[in-house]
């Protein structure tokens, strides 16, 4: 029962939703792709960011203005979490990291349940339902902002990794941890910085997501699986890959929903996931940062 008239608007909707996925995946690709930390707490940290922006909104701070607070705050949280908990508890073993981040996510979620209850929270802003006419379709303003922000964030991260000393240090640690240490790089600090930057991306994602979505202690689950798919599709550690991957996943989900039925829209995402693992395990933009 597909109406061809809505095909293009649906693809554009998918594109803007994909931008949201890209936003969540950008931080993950840094942590997961570059440092090989399988961060199961990624979704929980997104939830922390969303609650942060939500409570700031209660004090009258617009979610987009909250970026100024939430990005540094989440960076600090990520840094401290990696420095004091994940790094220490993992004893240098990548396998331990997996369990530690899983444990951290359970603790964070349950703390959120305890303090914020299981209630779903939403905010209403004057622009929440604003639409922009782009000729072929009406597009939600917060989604357009998210699309622009994901492009900007991907560019900033790329610049940071490619053009700064910190980026060089991160790449060095990612490539050869021991060698980097011998060259005088404080590996623990770089790990914490990378984790902090990845988490800061979630702070940005949270502020951009809040005007169009809801918050609950379990909200991380809604996005984190898709974010992992995006990272695998785009190529681990590739920011442009995460961006393109996110957009591609968004469009695929949207069009599959339209063609196969809305409840089956997510099949496309996971078919892509499996196909990527089978035929191009390094992802579309496969080479790691070097």
């Amino acid at each position: 029962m597909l109406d061809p008239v809505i095909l293009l608007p649906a693809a554009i909707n998918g594109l803007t939703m994909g931008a949201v996925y890209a936003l969540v995946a950008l931080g993950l690709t840094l942590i997961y792709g570059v440092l090989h930390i399988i961060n199961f707490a990624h979704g929980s940290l997104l939830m922390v960011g969303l609650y942060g922006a939500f409570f700031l909104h209660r004090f009258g701070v617009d979610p987009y203005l909250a970026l100024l607070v939430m990005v540094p705050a989440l960076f600090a949280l990520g840094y401290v979490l990696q420095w004091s908990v994940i790094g220490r508890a993992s004893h240098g073993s990548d396998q331990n990291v997996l369990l530690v981040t899983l444990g951290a996510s359970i603790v964070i979620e349950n703390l959120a349940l305890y303090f914020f209850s299981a209630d779903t929270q939403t905010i209403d802003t004057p622009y929440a339902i604003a639409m922009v006419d782009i000729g072929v379709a009406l597009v939600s303003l917060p989604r357009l902002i998210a699309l622009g922000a994901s492009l900007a964030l991907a560019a900033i991260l790329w610049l940071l990794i490619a053009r700064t000393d910190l980026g060089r240090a991160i790449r060095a640690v990612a490539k050869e941890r021991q060698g980097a240490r011998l060259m005088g790089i404080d590996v623990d600090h770089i790990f914490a910085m990378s984790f902090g930057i990845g988490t800061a991306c979630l702070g940005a994602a949270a502020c951009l997501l809040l005007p169009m979505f809801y918050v609950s202690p379990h909200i991380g689950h809604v996005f984190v699986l898709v974010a992992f798919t995006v990272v695998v599709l785009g190529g681990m550690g590739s920011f442009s890959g995460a961006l393109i991957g996110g957009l591609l996943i968004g469009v695929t989900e949207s069009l599959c929903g339209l063609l196969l039925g809305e409840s089956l829209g997510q099949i496309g995402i996971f078919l892509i996931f499996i196909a990527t693992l089978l035929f191009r395990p390094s992802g579309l933009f496969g080479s790691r940062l070097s």
Partner: protein
Amino acid sequence: MTKKSNRLSRRHVLAGAAAGAAVSSFGFPAVLRAQAASIKVGILHPVTGPLSYSGTQSRVGAQMAIEEINAAGGIKSMGGAKIEALLADAQSRPDVGAAEVEKLNEAGVAAIIGPYASGIALATTQAAARHGIPHIVDVAVVDQVVTRGLTNTFRFGPGLKKTVDTAIENLIKINDGAGKPARTVMIVHEESAFGSGMATTLNSELPKHGFEILETIKHANPTRDFSNIALRVQARKPDLLIPANYYNEYVLFARALQQQRIVPKAIYSILGGGASSYKFVKEFPQAASYVMDCNHWFDPRKAAALVLKEKTEKRDLFYTYEVFMNYSCVYLLADALERAGRADRAAIIAALASSTFDKHVMPYGPTRFVNGQNEGAQPVTTQVLDKDIKVIYPLAFASGNAVYPMPERRG
């Protein structure tokens, strides 16, 4: 020797204490009689996991009733025995719900109240039946909950068929009353047993009453984006839009409709996630305006229902149907305990089976269980009017007049 003497001394102390207690009990028999054994009742809901909000609300409703009953002197026919709530968490999973029933059985509960969701109820009622535990089902609308011949199961609220039948009946009255402006329908439902069952029934029943179903759209839980569904609704232009989904998806869908400026003649939910929610009305007054819902609702004419509303809101909670349904279920059990006169499971089952309890806050008649279903239960149709939720049908319980077709909504 010294050691032995010490041990003897301790024994003396203990013996003395025991003797003292015995003597004092003879001395104050009235005081001891007042301390009747408490009656353990399992309050089983999904307070963690995806259904945790509803589960928590349900638990609060039950606890408020228990506090009231205990403060008023407990179960009088049992010497003022207090109800002791054993709180259990089904974690939004049927298997965990069944395991919790086993634990509650070990703890010696006299009855179980819960567990909100249909899927969990199917498991918990069956587990409770194995031990002969009376199980009052609060919400869990799927009809199989009471059609499996379990004599321990008593559902206080209406089932799915009754709800859908009433919803259609009320819809026809509303539509006929306005000169039949609506003829075409679109259904948007979530994919679990609740939404799918509803869609199947509506697809078979609505055409019998002259409605044409243009399209039925099923969506996953969670669905992150309703823009495409809104686009399809916009392309089809149905007179009536019938959503059947949980709160989170309902909110996203309602906002997508508002964004695309879609205004059908009515948005008529059945057991809708948001349309009978004070939270939704408060947070999205424009998106909620004029939305109708056929759902569990309190009787706005009953003072007790309004007192409970006030008490709930004082706790900074929304007065959702989970609260007043569970509140009423506890009173239903208390009434059965009063009549049974003992915390014996079989006696409670017999008392529930013959219940005519009518001191609830619902727009129901006296309770009357037939094969475990309360035949006195019925849903009502509500509409969001003037930023409040009003009952519009049946007229006997109405607190507002239906506004139909829906006017243009601002925002």
